[in-house]
């Protein structure tokens, strides 16, 4: 590939054509046309950690499927390309996969705004996009398009699980700290509405810009709020920074820290700072059902680590996609769409129903608490409550709940 690159450098004008004509990665020679699945994933940049998880889950799944003879007798081929977490690049890469590589199925788009930029193009591309982690409520709400499916847990669903848990807790006053990002605002809105319905007091929220490094002022505000619990909607570096600093200020001694999402990656990066944290989980690897135990064991055999949250969630999306393709007997968008609508699958998180009205997967919600366990290097999320799908999934096309 270095050679090709040199060639394109020689004459720049020609490289426009050359770059586009260069075939994608060398493909194994199968007698049948493989099922190509496009993965425009953020593998570098600030969300690279999440991207790496999702990619691993897809690769794990593809290997499993191909080991059993593929799907519909065809091998699964993953076409992976880095988007840097930038929507402009994500759309371009997705379009390349569709127009050059003949991809008709996309997954593994990491960032919500990449997904939001991509979905309006799906009809033109005649392509199905099965979300692996995109949480933005609007993707199944006002921004819903027929070719988009979300087997994973959405942001509002994560917040809902934590809220249901809080209804039965003695805590009364809540404060919020969210990332100044669509996701942060949406989830906080849901949380506020949930507080009202549960007759709890929501004393206000503050939003920190993405990339905030010093959270001391926000910690001061949280202390002053006098709340018993603070609801956090932070991710990535911001989340790790806040948790580390909250621990240094001993914030958790006075206020219960609650969060929409907590994954092992964050726990490992912040260590004991997460102990005691209560949070929703899209996939807790400690979930104790046979299907999950088998998955965890198979995963450990390959990677020698436990599957993390986005790995489990993306894997479930792959399982749903697989069931859809098998049911449709085809990868054509119209047939696959019809097959996915109303599809019921038993996955590693229990039963998922891809409801037809807004393409959201109905599934249980988990609430976990971070605890230290004997023999484990890092703290682990322990499932402390599960809620049934009908209480977790919002009404069709909505982000807020009625009860």
């Amino acid at each position: 590939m270095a050679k090709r690159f040199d060639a394109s450098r020689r004459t720049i004008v020609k490289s426009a054509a050359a770059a586009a004509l260069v075939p994608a990665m060398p493909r194994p020679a199968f007698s049948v046309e493989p099922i190509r699945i496009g993965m425009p994933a953020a593998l570098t940049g600030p969300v690279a950690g999440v991207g790496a998880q999702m990619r691993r889950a897809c690769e794990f799944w593809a290997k499993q499927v191909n080991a059993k003879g593929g799907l519909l007798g065809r091998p699964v081929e993953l076409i992976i390309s880095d988007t840097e977490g930038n929507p402009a690049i994500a759309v371009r890469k997705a379009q390349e996969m569709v127009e050059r590589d003949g991809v008709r199925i996309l997954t593994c788009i990491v960032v919500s705004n990449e997904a939001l930029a991509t979905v309006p193009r799906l009809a033109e591309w005649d392509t199905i996009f099965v979300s692996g982690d995109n949480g933005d409520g609007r993707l199944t709400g006002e921004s819903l398009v027929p070719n988009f499916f979300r087997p994973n847990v959405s942001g509002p669903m994560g917040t809902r699980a934590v809220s249901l848990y809080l209804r039965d807790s003695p805590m009364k006053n809540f404060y919020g700290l969210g990332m100044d990002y669509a996701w942060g605002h949406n989830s906080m809105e849901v949380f506020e509405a949930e507080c009202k319905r549960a007759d709890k007091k929501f004393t206000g929220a503050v939003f920190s810009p993405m990339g905030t490094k010093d959270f001391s002022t926000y910690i001061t505000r949280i202390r002053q709020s006098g709340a018993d619990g603070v609801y956090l909607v932070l991710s990535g570096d911001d989340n790790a920074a806040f948790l580390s600093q909250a621990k240094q200020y001993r914030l958790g001694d006075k206020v219960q820290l609650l969060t929409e999402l907590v994954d092992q990656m964050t726990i490992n990066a912040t260590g004991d700072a997460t102990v005691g944290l209560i949070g929703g989980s899209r996939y807790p690897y400690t979930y104790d059902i046979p299907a999950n135990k088998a998955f965890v064991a198979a995963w450990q055999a390959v990677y020698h680590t436990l599957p993390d949250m986005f790995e489990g969630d993306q894997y479930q999306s792959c399982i749903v996609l697989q069931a859809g393709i098998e049911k449709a007997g085809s990868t054509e968008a119209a047939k696959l769409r019809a097959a996915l609508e109303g599809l019921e699958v038993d996955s590693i998180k229990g039963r998922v129903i891809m409801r037809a009205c807004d393409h959201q997967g109905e599934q249980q919600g988990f609430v976990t608490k971070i605890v230290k366990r004997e023999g484990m290097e890092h703290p682990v999320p322990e499932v402390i409550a599960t809620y049934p799908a009908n209480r977790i999934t919002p009404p069709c096309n909505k982000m807020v709940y009625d009860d």
Partner: protein
Amino acid sequence: MDFFPFLVTQCLNALSQAALLFFLGVGLTLIFGIMRIVNFAHGSFYMLGAFIGYSVARGTGSFWAGLVLSPLIAGGFGTAFEIGLLRRLYRRDASAFLMVTFGLTLVLGEVVRLLWGVQGLQLQLPTALAGIVFLFDEPFPVYRLFLIGAGAVVAIAIWQFLERTRLGLLIRATSQNAEMVQALGVDVNLVRSGIFGVGCGLAALGGVLAAPMVTASLGMAANAIVDAFVIVIIGGMGSFPGSLCAALLVAFVQVFGTYYFPDFAIAAMYLLMLLVLVIRPGGLLGKEA
């Protein structure tokens, strides 16, 4: 919280933040003063410092070893980069430096990703620093007080070094007029290599000290470089006391601004820079640009 305890806490918060900003800015301003180049890769050395600090601390079991060794390693690397690449470019225009340091930023980011992976890493504090003190019955981290102390010590050390030592004199002279110093028989190249290394080392020191608060992560570099530029520009390019004042000013504006106007937190630093530059185009203590 009453007003007075609130004020004290917030001021300490601001001072600790200023210390970190100072480490970041002072290295860049020293480099600019001597070499008149815009070092785009400064944030990458900050990040590199955090990761090397993590590995050293993990390998030796001592935070202090990481704190000392990481700036030395990163500084050595900076010097090597200066000798190997930058030295050949002093006759070229500013865009050559811009591009070469931009390239270095990409390379360093990738090297860190390949060596340490994409997950954030925690730099464990020693027990002595992990504790708290009570200020008006509210816990305050010892580590933040340590940061303030470290900032003060480094600031005084640099100041004394520049004012009192022969080498410091040389550095100040070189930043005033490099040709003159060269004509006096001093090897200006040596001064440049040294200062580039010291500047990168200071950034790395900031990175190690920031790591326990933000975790060592790949996002550190991009975040830091703009902060560093803002500090240097507000203070006045090449002015050591300027970078100190700027770090304090920015930290106080951020801490209090974020408290009273959280919606402006995202823009506070830039508004401040705009204001300062409109009033004094050369920065607070810089020469007229």
